[in-house]
């Protein structure tokens, strides 16, 4: 029988995958995709808890998270386009002008 714990474990695994992607990959677009994986893992947690508690609030929070994710994707990709125009590269290691 599938319980709340199963969903929480799946969510933790997905979140760990997303975190690993942010740290390991050297490509700005893949890093943004990893952030989307993490946001979706959290969404799964919200929906599973909402189901367990019999409340609709979890689904409403997911609605807001998706809105924020859309805004983040739009601004993030605009920044990626600007950076690529500047350096002809997507490697985050090549953007070190602000490093002290």
């Amino acid at each position, binding site marked *: 029988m599938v319980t709340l714990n199963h969903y929480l474990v799946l969510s933790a695994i997905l979140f760990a*995958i997303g975190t690993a992607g942010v740290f390991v990959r050297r490509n700005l*677009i893949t890093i943004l995709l990893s952030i989307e*994986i993490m946001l979706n893992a959290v969404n799964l947690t919200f929906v599973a808890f*909402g*189901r367990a508690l*019999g409340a609709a609030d979890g*689904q409403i929070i997911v609605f807001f998270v998706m809105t924020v994710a859309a805004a983040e*994707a739009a601004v993030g990709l605009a920044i*990626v386009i600007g950076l690529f125009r500047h350096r002809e590269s*997507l490697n985050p290691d090549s953007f070190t002008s602000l490093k002290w």
Partner: protein
Amino acid sequence: MLFYLFAAVAVVASLLVIAQRNPIYSVLLLIASFGALSGLYVLLDAPFVAVIQIIVYAGAIMVLFLFVVMLLNAPHEETELDERVHPMMHPGAVRLGAALAVALVVELVWALTEGGGESGAFNSGAVSSVNAIGRLLFTEYAFPFEVTSILILVAMVGAVVIARREHP
């Protein structure tokens, strides 16, 4: 069991997103992962979330990503991990990461076995109608909803300003 099928698809697709060198394949695999998550939302009696997951996430946000990947026509990642200079390959960092990974695995096993306390079985009462969600969204959550519209407006203007060429 449908849960295990969807969970396996989501985890494998997410792993491949991380493993792919070509960003286009990463984006397409992430769409597959979102499809599996949408199936999980259906299993959780949340059809509204499942539908907007497909429409908004897979349909709008991922297409935006795909558009940017194709627009930039970026070169593939040059080197995966340059072990001499990469700070992630510092011995202390590797040891800390291994410790954290072991801790995570122990916690996951503990949560799935009897040690995790009450099993968290789902009760029968689930709120799944779009009617109830919409009613809650426009009464109790009306203020966050309106703030969201401002957020979208700011993001829209910001994206246009950032991506614009300074000297056309």
